[in-house]
């Protein structure tokens, strides 16, 4: 296909604005899958992918669109992973494109993630095509929302297509707009190869599969390629595109988006953001790649079964392949044994990684409560970075501690501004600005400690604004804070994995809330277990988990035996998710107790 007939684009949107539904419709309209078979077919191919160890997400699909001008166009729809609603993954996808379809819910209007994604698209010099979705909803206000997009983002919406991705209304117009308004890839096929790696996955048979966007030159099966960051060289064994089934091809040329396999067994040699070139005819310059994302949140991940430490390590390495933002290094906990301190971009990222480890690698994990990185200025004049509360130096060696702050931008309906400000205040937020967006909504800006943002801020924002507020945050710098380490003692023994760092003013409340929460989460055991929260050697809160009194099923006659056994099996499964610390069995959730406790209690 002629390069000028290629269009590479992503769909970007705030969560639930209809990105996936639109992608489905586009697949149907380009006859990539039969409408009737749509679901089955995609699921089938996903099963196949799973069997082959390829990632389950649809990350880049090649489609052929027969446009109204009579010509065929080759579309590469690059999926922005739906499950991670932070910017890093999106920016990776965007760097492989020339254009983006911005989907905005015509009833809900612009949301925080809409704006964040638009800024990312602009950073990548993408042409943005605004589309108003859910136009068939009674509450849809396309004109108002168009104005909002123009005012807030500065995008011309006079040609914005109004669609219903659900019913398929006007989706054909979106396809025409893609042809006419998004640019073709600019590269030069005669130049040396420059292919951007925007994702990679591990396949047990093919080795590492790199997903690439070819910016210049071309690559063929049998070519010797070089990964510019690591310098590693491999011979291409297979390459191709996805339609959405994996399809082998002989070569990928400028403007193509596809995959390359080269029997790469050493997964560390392939980094997302790297440039692939040809060993015999290398390009002088690598592509810009991505700026390395620094993790914001750290937590310990431990296998419940200590014997599975190596499995966890291998799983983390494989996940890191297509998630360069995941950092990890070994650590040891007195309570939990050997595990890893992992760095994540945020709590959602942490959740996703944890779930993938459990689901895809069949690991049973304990995650400790997340922590940010503290800059600890010690009395000897040195500065230590601490990402694990248990590792905080003793109080007498600390001069002062600094913690990371973020700038939080919150879009909130007018009626909830007061509630939202209360919440920010409670989270030690510092008010910066409040601006009208339109007649009904305002933008609220606060500087807040990141540790407070990761500590149930999102859930409380959603619940106190009935789900109407949305927010985005960016790191803004370190600030000095009056912080202390709060230790938890179970049965008189400190459990290092339960320690947290808290602001002095909150220490008492959090200690109390933590003790109460743990009392709820830790099941009763043979003996009474005192739960204490302490700052240094001073106990600030105490409660008891009473000894288990009664746990016996009343009936067990002949006909009850198998049912009764099933109930015991269930209890046994529950126990498997617990960690024996000293003589106390602690369930997984207890280590995350800090995230779910209610401060106000």
């Amino acid at each position: 296909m002629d390069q000028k007939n290629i269009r590479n684009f992503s769909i970007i949107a705030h969560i639930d604005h209809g990105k996936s539904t639109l992608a489905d419709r586009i697949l149907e309209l380009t006859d990539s899958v039969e409408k009737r078979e749509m679901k089955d077919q995609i699921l089938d191919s996903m099963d196949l992918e799973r069997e082959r160890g390829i990632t389950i997400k649809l990350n880049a699909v090649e489609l052929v669109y027969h446009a109204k001008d009579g010509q065929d166009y080759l579309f590469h729809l690059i999926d922005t992973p739906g499950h991670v609603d932070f910017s890093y993954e999106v920016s990776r996808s965007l760097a492989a494109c020339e254009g983006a379809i911005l989907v905005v819910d015509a009833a809900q209007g612009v949301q925080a993630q809409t704006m964040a994604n638009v800024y990312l698209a602009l950073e990548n010099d993408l042409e943005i095509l605004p589309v108003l979705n859910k136009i068939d909803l009674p509450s849809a206000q396309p004109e108002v929302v168009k104005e909002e997009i123009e005012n807030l983002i500065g995008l011309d919406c006079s040609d914005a297509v109004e669609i219903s991705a659900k019913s398929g209304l006007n989706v054909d117009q979106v396809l025409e707009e893609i042809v006419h308004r998004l640019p073709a890839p600019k590269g030069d096929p005669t130049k040396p190869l420059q292919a951007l790696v925007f994702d990679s996955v591990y396949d047990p048979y093919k080795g590492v599969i790199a997903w690439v966007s070819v910016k210049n030159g071309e690559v063929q099966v049998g070519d010797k390629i070089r990964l510019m960051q690591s310098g590693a060289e491999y011979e291409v064994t297979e390459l191709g595109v996805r339609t959405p089934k994996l399809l082998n091809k002989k070569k990928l040329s400028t403007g193509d988006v596809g995959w390359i396999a080269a029997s790469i067994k050493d997964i560390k040699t392939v980094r997302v953001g790297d440039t692939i070139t040809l060993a015999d005819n290398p390009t002088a310059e690598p592509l810009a790649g991505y700026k390395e994302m620094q993790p914001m949140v750290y937590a310990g991940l431990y296998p419940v079964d200590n014997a599975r430490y190596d499995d966890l390590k291998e799983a983390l390495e494989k996940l890191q392949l297509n998630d360069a933002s995941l950092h990890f290094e070994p650590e040891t906990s007195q309570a939990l044994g050997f595990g890893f301190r992992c760095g994540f971009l945020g709590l959602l990222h942490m959740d996703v990684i944890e779930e993938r480890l459990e689901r895809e690698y069949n690991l049973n994990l304990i995650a400790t409560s997340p922590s940010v990185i503290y800059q600890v200025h010690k009395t000897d004049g040195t500065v230590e970075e601490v990402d694990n509360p248990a590792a905080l130096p003793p109080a007498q060696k600390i001069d002062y501690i600094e913690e990371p702050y973020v700038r939080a931008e919150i879009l909130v309906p007018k009626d909830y501004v007061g509630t939202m400000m209360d919440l920010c205040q409670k989270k030690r937020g510092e008010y910066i600005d409040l601006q009208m967006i339109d007649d009904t909504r305002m933008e609220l800006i606060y500087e807040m400690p990141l540790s407070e943002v990761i500590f149930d801020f999102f859930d409380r924002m959603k619940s106190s604004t009935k789900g109407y507020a949305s927010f985005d945050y960016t790191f803004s710098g370190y600030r000095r804070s009056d912080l202390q380490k709060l230790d938890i003692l179970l049965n008189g023994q400190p459990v290092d994995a339960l320690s947290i760092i808290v602001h002095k003013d909150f220490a008492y409340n959090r200690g109390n809330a933590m003790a109460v929460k743990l009392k709820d989460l830790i099941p009763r055991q043979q003996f009474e277990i005192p739960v204490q929260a302490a700052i240094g050697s001073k106990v600030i809160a105490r409660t008891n988990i009473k000894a288990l009194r009664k746990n016996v099923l009343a009936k067990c006659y002949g006909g009850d035996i198998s049912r009764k056994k099933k109930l015991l099996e269930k209890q046994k499964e529950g126990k498997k998710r617990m960690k024996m610390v000293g003589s106390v069995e602690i369930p997984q959730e207890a280590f995350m107790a800090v995230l779910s406790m209610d401060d106000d209690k």
Partner: protein
Amino acid sequence: MSQKLTSSFNVPSLYVHVPFCSHICSYCAFSKTANTGRIDAWLNTLEQEIRIAAPVYETDSTDSDKGESSDQRQPGLVPGRFFQTIYIGGGTPSALDEEQTARLLQLLEPFRPDESRLAQSDLPFEWTIEANPESLTAKKIRLWKKAGINRVSLGIQTFNDERLAQIGRYHTADESRKAVELLKAEGIENICADLMYGFPGESLEELDRDIDAFLELEIDHLSIYSLILEDGTLLARQISAEDIDGDLCAAMYERIEERLTKAGYVHYEVSSYARNGRYGLHNTLIWEDGRYAALGWGACGRDEKGLYDHARRFDDYLKDPSARIYEDDPNPSFDALMTGLRTIWGVDLDAWQKRYGIDFYGKYKAVLDRWKNDLIIENGRLGVSRQGMERLDSILVDFLDAE
């Protein structure tokens, strides 16, 4: 540890399930149907099942040689051969009318052991039937007695009429008392009362009134269960598990034990109390890892191959009543611990090790250590302490975990 009740594992029992109720109680998860119009079809099928499952039915009762060899095959259904106990449960066996009752008893008649066989056993013959107070009549009791039934288990549940209505029972406390009087008047001495406790909102005082009322009946056996919210029951949809206070339930369990023990009853199983030696023999045999044959839709049995059930759907049962569906039961040795530890007689470890070929002490060392205060080994028998029995499931989970 008390001496064990029975002399051997292999005393076979027979369980007969009557899957009919005049109505469905809101807490019940047993197999049952309120469609009493199908009782006659069921009786026909039961007869068929007996014929298929017991091929020696017609000819065997006089042929002693053949009988002997059949006995070796126990606990197959061998009429005229030896069942130490028969238990007719439900459902509501008393929901059958007199004619239907007579027919059922006639079908079971051949399973009643003969006198000479009984004389060889160190245990009494026990034939129990479950009944509800409202469907009990003198005429039915006479039929039962004549057939050889010598024990009646009465579903009283509580003496609080409001509670009875709440859990969907159709009788009153008064009817329960009258039922006991009637049984005694008809010469049934061995009576068991079924009671429940731990109703949502029930207080210790309310429980005390139930215990008072029970003691006034002057009967020898009590089965008393904490209310369990079983999935799939009406009650489980009406209230949630959180409405039931675990600590209060424990206090009730302890109160029952204290008061019944004081009144001369032996707390011989988690939920069972008996005086005058009138232990529920049928269930005790099952708890002691006995083998039991099962008749009727919804009846579960255990033979050497394991636990089995009949066809799940009533209509399938009618089509093929003899189909035995074996449960996936990978560790029957655990079942023996699970049921054995429920009684004060515990588990005979030598017999257990022999039967299952497992080194008990090696396999469960960690569990024995962990629960050293609750598990007792005495005279080669493993049992639980009073406290251990109250939290037996926690101990059992550890046994299961060691599988």
